[in-house]
């Protein structure tokens, strides 16, 4: 980042930079205003209300937070939410990394097909996709029928944590593949040839050249998938059982079934803060000093 600053000082004269800043203060504000307004009304305001009610209902004070941290099941579910999200992120990374790499290596037509395969699930409703997983994963479903057919004992998939992770990973995979692909396509594959000429075996060339250069994409994809997974509701609700409940299900239960906005709000705030803390911890990792390659 330090060199970025030097670069921009070199290429953009100070006067122009000042001019840009002045222009930004004047005109550009109106360009971002609609989006900003939408954010404030649809996200900022409800969030503020939820936070307020977590302190004000049924009376002013910390009672909802005391309840949350005083109830063991809540902490178990919070911990499980993070664990499932971590598993989903890992599965997405393992499945998405080679996929994104292949996207950079194939010809333009094949690449289009691969991109379509990633995007098609986006055009199908999440509920439908999850119900499809129910059919696949259930005890008498396609997967277990196949396992039985080859003479193995069936596996319990539906209403287990494994089932939830499989379903969520499938839904979230595009959010891993797309950032990975956007970083990988900027990596000059001729660097691998250079590494080989210098004496690196293909495995070492990958580990020491390709992998480090692809890390910004890994961090970006992992953070997006992890955060989206933390707030997942439909998939764990349909594919999970009582032992794989995630925090969103508890929140829904408090707010919609018990009409306890105070406790539900407190849970939401805890999840939000925990996410922020994790992001802050991950931020130094994603700082890549030199992203600019020798690719022209």
């Amino acid at each position, binding site marked *: 980042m330090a*060199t970025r600053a*030097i*670069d921009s000082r070199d290429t953009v004269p100070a006067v122009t930079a000042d001019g840009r800043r002045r222009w930004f203060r004047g005109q550009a504000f109106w360009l971002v205003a609609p989006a900003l307004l939408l954010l404030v009304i649809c996200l900022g305001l409800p969030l503020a209300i939820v936070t307020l009610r977590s302190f004000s209902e049924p009376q002013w004070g910390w009672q909802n937070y005391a309840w949350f941290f005083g109830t063991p099941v809540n902490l178990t579910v919070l911990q499980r939410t993070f664990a499932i999200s971590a598993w989903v992120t890992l599965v997405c990374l393992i499945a998405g990394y080679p996929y994104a790499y292949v996207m950079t290596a194939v010809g333009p037509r094949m690449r289009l097909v691969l991109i379509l395969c990633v995007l098609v699930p986006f055009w199908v409703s999440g509920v439908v996709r999850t119900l499809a997983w129910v059919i696949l994963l259930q005890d008498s479903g396609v997967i277990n029928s196949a396992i039985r057919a080859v003479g193995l004992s069936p596996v319990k998939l539906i209403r287990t944590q494994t089932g939830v992770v499989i379903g969520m990973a499938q839904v979230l995979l595009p959010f891993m593949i797309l950032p990975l692909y956007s970083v990988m396509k900027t990596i*000059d594959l*001729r*660097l691998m*040839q*250079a*590494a*080989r*000429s*210098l*004496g*690196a*075996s*293909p495995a*070492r*060339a990958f580990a*020491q*050249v390709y992998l*480090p*250069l692809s890390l910004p994409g890994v961090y970006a994809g992992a953070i997006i998938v992890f955060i989206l997974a933390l707030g997942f509701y439909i998939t764990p609700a349909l594919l999970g059982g009582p032992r794989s409940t995630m925090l969103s299900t508890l929140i829904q239960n408090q707010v919609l079934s018990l009409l306890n906005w105070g406790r539900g709000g407190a849970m939401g705030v805890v999840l939000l803060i925990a996410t922020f803390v994790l992001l802050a911890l991950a931020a130094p990792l994603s700082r*890549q*000093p*030199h*992203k*600019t*390659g*020798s*690719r*022209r």
Partner: protein
Amino acid sequence: MASPSTRGAAIDLKSVSKHYGSFIALDKVSLRIEPGEFMTLLGPSGSGKTTTLNVIAGFTEVSSGSLDVGGKSVIGVPAHKRNIGVVFQHYALFPHMTVSRNVAYPLTLRGIANPDRAARVRKALDMVRMADFGHRFPSELSGGQQQRVALARAIVFDPPLLLMDEPLGALDKKLREWLQLEIKRIHRELGTTFVYVTHDQEEALVLSDRIAVFNQGRIEQIGTGRQLYDEPETLFVGKFVGDSTILRGAASTSGNETAIDVAGWKVAAAKRLADGAKPVMLLRPEKLSLARRGKGGQDRNTLPGRIGEAIYLGSGSKYEVVLADTSKAIVRSTLEAETFAIGDEVDLVFAGSDVKLLADDENADFTLT
């Protein structure tokens, strides 16, 4: 570093072919490069010169033929086990490593630890005059500086052979000329065998001990720059290396003399080709002279023409003369010679002994990219 005589590896390509489906990238190429030699592979794009380099580096497997480096066959040996330095046109420095770490990388791979490693990195950076840039990242360097670092990285592990694929292609002319001299100096100091790929014939003449001229997957001629310029064996070599004037027309031979009729004007040379070949005449610009129309003299070959372009070069002038058959002749004259203006009617004069008589070849045309 060891003494120059023991450092370079000999390279022996014998009848090497490379096919991509029905496309023949290399067609039975044979080439021997002596230890410590500076060999340039020269040719237009798609002529097979880069394929040859990739075959030697191990990036491309041959379809047939044999390849020895340092007396041992390297067919089937993967690139990372060949111990050959490669410099690429696009530098190919690792953007996430500093200059020092880039140069240290091949040493790290070979298990060479500090302080030996650091000393060798410093020495290599010294050699390319980049010693003060070790802590920088490639993105903070200019193109010329990046290429010098890439050169240091390719020589730091003392490979017996260094391959360079148009290393100066992305740089501007002044920088290119200066780096050519630097590369020549480094070659002299190291004694390593250098194989250099370029499409720039001037660059080839500046750098090389010998030049192999490639065309359409074959080697047309191998020789020193002077041999290629003075004694081209094919029309392609004559046209590709240096400026040339080609005279075409109906040919007739009598005894040992060949005459060509250029739009009604006969020129002759006391030479002849083997039977069956259609002869054309090739003349170098400094072998041609110009005279006002009708003052060319009778003892030598004379062709009428009109000055189409006159270029002042400082050390002399260069003229493009449009001949009667609309072909163009290129003439270089010294400062003392008479000067002409565009549109002047002139006689093109040359001696039959300066004519190179070559077989016509419709594959002799090339495009530079």
